[in-house]
Every structure is written in structure tokens, then in C-alpha cells.
């Protein structure tokens, strides 16, 4: 008698344990790779937080079939570190897909690694065209635009403002060289003149030699193809040498750190970037509200919405086809007109999202302001030499 009664709790426990696995969701891992330290860390952290936001919101959804976990890896904006963490992510079979890279030079370096280890990835911030167009690997996709569109728009706008003479300073990574190539192409096609081109290293400190030569050429605009740290130095040293030209940059300098590093010298600097500011995106308001709720230490910065969209897209696909790399890869190949906070995503045959929007920015009173909304566009304030 006693033994039978004692058996009952044990049976109940056994039944409970048997029932649990049927209720517990499988954990699916996604890798996030970006520059979390170094000169571009602000953008990397913004991207990480945004991807994290997407994962948190999905995990809070009771209808989700899986629990998602974001594996965060720092590529330090260095190619060798990037390949290391890419190998780590690709070799880990529990990671189903990756949201990868802001620095173009790193994204170029890891393309082969992701293909070799068969990890489907979506780039969230790197703009070098060759990342999707320079090969025929099926694994690499991208939600943000490329620098081809960016430089075409940039050339058009600056020519329309009446500028005709440029000096180009670019960093010698693929990023800077790509910008140089496309901008030169579009400006000369539009009737402008490139008076001189100078290549500088990505961690260079002193630009007085290059800028003195540039000053001798008497340009109206100095075009800079590179990232924030040396953008700050070049603009500051331009002032030291008394160069009174307009400073024009690319997506690499559209960051708060650029303005912080220059103070009043940043006023009137023009730059161009793929996509649109978060507030102007279709899902922008929703994204910014949810982001603020999480109280992250860093803002989403320029490419946060793209990281969010990439993560959300991957999770949507995994919900449909399951946590299988091959199935996810096949599904990525069929993404057409998929709705997201950055607008409709369509991957072309190279995995590139056919996004056409490019936004022009100008620094006004210590903030990056969309060109069309600025006092420079209305004529109330003037660019240098206008």
C-alpha cells in the first residue's frame, strides 16, 4: 500500500518531465559581427544593439517557434580579426546565419570564409560593391546600398551647386579606393574636374604634406573617401593650413564622433549615405520607439535600422524553413519585396538589395541634417565658396 502511494509522486514527476521538452523552444543562434572597439565602434555598437533589439522583440513574441540568441563578435574593423571571428562563427554548427560587418575592407576579407564554411550572411553596413558583385558566392547578401549609387548622387548634387574643381583624398583600403573610383567616374562624366588624387593610410596622423600639395592646386572642394578618424584629422589640418575649400565626405564620416572631434570646424561639411535617416524610414518610428525602451548605452547610429532589418529577415526565414543553413540559404535567394523597417527588400542575383535611396547630409549647428531640410538647401546658409 505505502509503496503504491509513494509511486504516485514519482510518476507525476516523470509525466511532467516528459511533457516539458514538448513545451521548451529550441534555441537558434545568430551571429552578429561588427566593429565594437576602435575608431568605428559607435556604429558597430549601434548595429549590435539594433540586432539585439530585433532578437529581444522576437523572443517576447509568444507565437515564435524558436528562441533566438545573438552571438556577438568584434571584428575591430581589421581584416585579420574579421577572418578570425568569421571562422569562429562559420565553424560553430549551432550558428545558423550571420548579420555581418560595417567596415568594407573586413567584409571583403571574410567573403571566402563564409562561403567555405557555408554560413549564410546578410551584410548590414559595408558599402563596397565588390562585397556582393565581386564574386558569385550564394552565401553573401546585403540589405544596405552600395557606394555606386552614393557617389552618383553625390556628384550630381555637388555639380548642381556649381562646384567644378575637386581634389580627392582617399584611404588606401578597398573602401577608399572604391569611393575614389566611382566618384571620379561620375564627376568627370558630369563635367567636373579632378585636379589631384592622394592616397593616405587608414591610420595616418599627419596630412600636412598632402594638404599642402592640395592647396597648391586650388580646389573648390576636397572630397574625402574614408572613415571618421582620419576625416576628423584632415578637416582639422585643412584649417591649420588655411585651406578654404568645401569638405565633402562619404557615409564613413556620417557619425556623431565626426562632429564631436571637430567642434565648430564641422559646420557646413557635406556627406552622402545609403538609405534614409531612421525617422524617415517606413518602420523608423516603430524602430526608434522600441530602441528607446531598451535604454541602450549607445544610439543606433546610421546603420542600426539595417542591422535590425537583417536580423528580423533572418528570423522570419528561420520561422518558415527551420534552423537549417541550407534551407535558410535557399530561402534568402527568393526574397522579393519583403517588407521591413527599411522598406521593401529584394535581393538580386548577387544577393544585393536593390535599394535606390541615397540621402545627402550637411552639418548644421553641430548635427547632421538631411540636405533638403537644411538652411543650405534653401540658400539661407552658403557652402564654402558659393
Amino acid at each position: 500500500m505505502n509503496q503504491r502511494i509513494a509511486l504516485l509522486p514519482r510518476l507525476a514527476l516523470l509525466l511532467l518531465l516528459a511533457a516539458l521538452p514538448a513545451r521548451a523552444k529550441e534555441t537558434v543562434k545568430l551571429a552578429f559581427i561588427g566593429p565594437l572597439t576602435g575608431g568605428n565602434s559607435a556604429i558597430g555598437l549601434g548595429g549590435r544593439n539594433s540586432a539585439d533589439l530585433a532578437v529581444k522583440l522576437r523572443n517576447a513574441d509568444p507565437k515564435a517557434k524558436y528562441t533566438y540568441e545573438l552571438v556577438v563578435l568584434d571584428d575591430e574593423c581589421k581584416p585579420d580579426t574579421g577572418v578570425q571571428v568569421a571562422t569562429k562563427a562559420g565553424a560553430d554548427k549551432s550558428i545558423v546565419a550571420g548579420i555581418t560587418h560595417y567596415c568594407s575592407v573586413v567584409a571583403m576579407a571574410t567573403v571566402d570564409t563564409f562561403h567555405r564554411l557555408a554560413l549564410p550572411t546578410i551584410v548590414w553596413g559595408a558599402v563596397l560593391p565588390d562585397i556582393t558583385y565581386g564574386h558569385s558566392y550564394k552565401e553573401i547578401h546585403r540589405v544596405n546600398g552600395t557606394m555606386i549609387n552614393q557617389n552618383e548622387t553625390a556628384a550630381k548634387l555637388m555639380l548642381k551647386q556649381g562646384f567644378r574643381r575637386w581634389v580627392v583624398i582617399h584611404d588606401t583600403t578597398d573602401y577608399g579606393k572604391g569611393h575614389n573610383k566611382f566618384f571620379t567616374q561620375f564627376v568627370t562624366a558630369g563635367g567636373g574636374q579632378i585636379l589631384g588624387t592622394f592616397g593616405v593610410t587608414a591610420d595616418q596622423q599627419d596630412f600636412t604634406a598632402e594638404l599642402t600639395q592640395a592647396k597648391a592646386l586650388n580646389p573648390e572642394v576636397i572630397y574625402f573617401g574614408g572613415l571618421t578618424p582620419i576625416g576628423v584629422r584632415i578637416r582639422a589640418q585643412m584649417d591649420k593650413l588655411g585651406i578654404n575649400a568645401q569638405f565633402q565626405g562619404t557615409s564613413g564620416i556620417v557619425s556623431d564622433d565626426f562632429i564631436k572631434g571637430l567642434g565648430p570646424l564641422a559646420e557646413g561639411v557635406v556627406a552622402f549615405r545609403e538609405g534614409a535617416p531612421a525617422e524617415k524610414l517606413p518602420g523608423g518610428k516603430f524602430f526608434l520607439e522600441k530602441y528607446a525602451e531598451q535604454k541602450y548605452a549607445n544610439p543606433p547610429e546610421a546603420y542600426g535600422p539595417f542591422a535590425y532589418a537583417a536580423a528580423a529577415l533572418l528570423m522570419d526565414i528561420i520561422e518558415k524553413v527551420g534552423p537549417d543553413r541550407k534551407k535558410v540559404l535557399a530561402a534568402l535567394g527568393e526574397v522579393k519585396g519583403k517588407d521591413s523597417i527599411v522598406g521593401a527588400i529584394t535581393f538580386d542575383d548577387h544577393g544585393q538589395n536593390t535599394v535606390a535611396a541615397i540621402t545627402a547630409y550637411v552639418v548644421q549647428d553641430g548635427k547632421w541634417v538631411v540636405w533638403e531640410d537644411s538652411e543650405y538647401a534653401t540658400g539661407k546658409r552658403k557652402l564654402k565658396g558659393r
Partner: protein
Amino acid sequence: MDLLAQYVMNGVMLGLMYALVAIGFTLFFGVLNVIQFAHGDVLTAGAFAGLASYAVVVQAGVASPLPQLVTVALAATLSMAVLGAVLGRVLVLPLKAAPALNVLLATLMGGTALRESIRLFYPGGSQPQRFPTLLPTSSWSLGRFALRLDNLLMLAAGAVLVVALSLVLQRTRLGLAIRAVAQDEETARTMGIDFRRVVLLTFAIGSALAAFAGVMNGLYYAEVNFGSGLLLGVIGFSAAVLGGLGSFSGALLGGFLFAALQTVGAVALPFASAYKDVFAFGAVILLMTWKPTGLIGEQLSERV
């Protein structure tokens, strides 16, 4: 002509900064036969110490640039003098009997730790920091040459410092003690010179010099970042070896020569100024092959 003047000015400013770092290396090598590879990072730490003291002084309500400048310079040099003495006491003196390579490695690692500490612990340390404009910004345009008052002031201050240091070394008892220890440690000790005191003072002086160079660097570029010391350390060391490790005038010559090589490389090479460092270092290698003990000095650089 005006363009040439601008290039010369750029080169001279760079040369002064390299020379100040090179003098530090040469002092350390002369006195203790050590290569203090944390020297470049002490320069950066000095610049950041200056920057931090600027923030404090502004908070305290001091608005005029002159007292701000004096505070920044004093804070940087004094704190780095202390840091230099600490480095000497902790990293170098204990390893005196060890192979010279060990000391080099120890200071190299110390320098890396210092650099990473700045990056991690200074607020926003991984980003370039805006250095305040503390010198008058008036400049005269002579054609395409911008003659700036702040550059002239920094040049003058640097020259005064170099001359003062040279006088200290040649005319004072401390200088005599330093030169005695550099020449022959055993005999100097026998003569009653406090070896440890001389070493620590030399480290303090050399590091204070680095801090001054760091503040100058910050004022010149209106910016400091945690990595500035790395390349400056390598260039300063190369300049010191080029001029002759252990020779004061050699360090000066090496510093200005390297800056001249860089400027010539940037201007003369048609394809890309990105190769100016390659050109400058390449030229240094050739010069060293021709004169292994340096252009002026007699010390051997076999330890490197």
C-alpha cells in the same frame, strides 16, 4: 617659393616632435643601455593627462587660455615625470642584470598596457579626442604659405627646451652625473654618484620631454588619440638610431632628417603620398647600412 616655405614649415614642426621623442630614447639608452619602448605611449599618456587637466580647469571656471595652457603643460609634464620614474623603478631597474632584450620586451609590453588602458578607461578613449586650441590662432598669408603664430610659438618653446636640456647636461652637477653614469656605471658609482637617483631622474626628465611633445602634438593637430604614440615611438627610435644612439645632437639630427625624408617622399613621389613612410624608412635603412653606428654617435646599436 611660398609653397617651399610651407613644406619647410611642415617638416620643421614634424622634425621637432620626432627630435623630442628621439632625445628621450637616446637619454635612456645612454644612461642605462635600455631601449624604453613605452616612450611613445608615455607621450600619448602625457597628452591625455593634459586633456584631462584641461577639462578640470575649465570646470573650475578658468576661462582664459594662458592659465589653461600653463596648467595643461604642467599637468602633462609633471604627471609623466612621475610615471617615467615609476616605469624606471618597476620595469627597468629590476631587470638591470637581465639580457637587454628582456628590458626591451618589458617596456614594449608596458607601453601596450598603457595604450590599451587609455583606450579602455579614458571616457570615449577609442575615438580621436579634440584637443583645445590654447595658442593664438593668428596667421599671416604669404602667398600660399600660411605662417601661423602658434607654430612659431611651439617652435620657440621646443628650441628653448632642447637648449635648456643641453645646458643641464653640460653645465650642471646633475648633468655631469648623468654623463658619468652613461660613460661608465661602475666608476661613477665608485665616485659616489647615487646611481638609482640618477636613473630615476633621467627617466623623469625623458618622460617629461615626451609629455611636452605630446601636448605639442595635441596643439598642432588639434587632436589626440590613443594610438598616436605607436608610430611616433617607432619613428623617434629610428631617428635616434639614425643619428647615433646615445648622442644628443644625433637625436636632433635624426629627428629632423626623418621629417625631411617624409616630406620629400610625400611631395616627390608622383603616385601616392601613401608611400612616404615606405620611402622614409627605406632611406633610413640605406643610411644605416652606410653608417651602422649612426651618423654622429659612436654607440653600437647591436642590441636591437
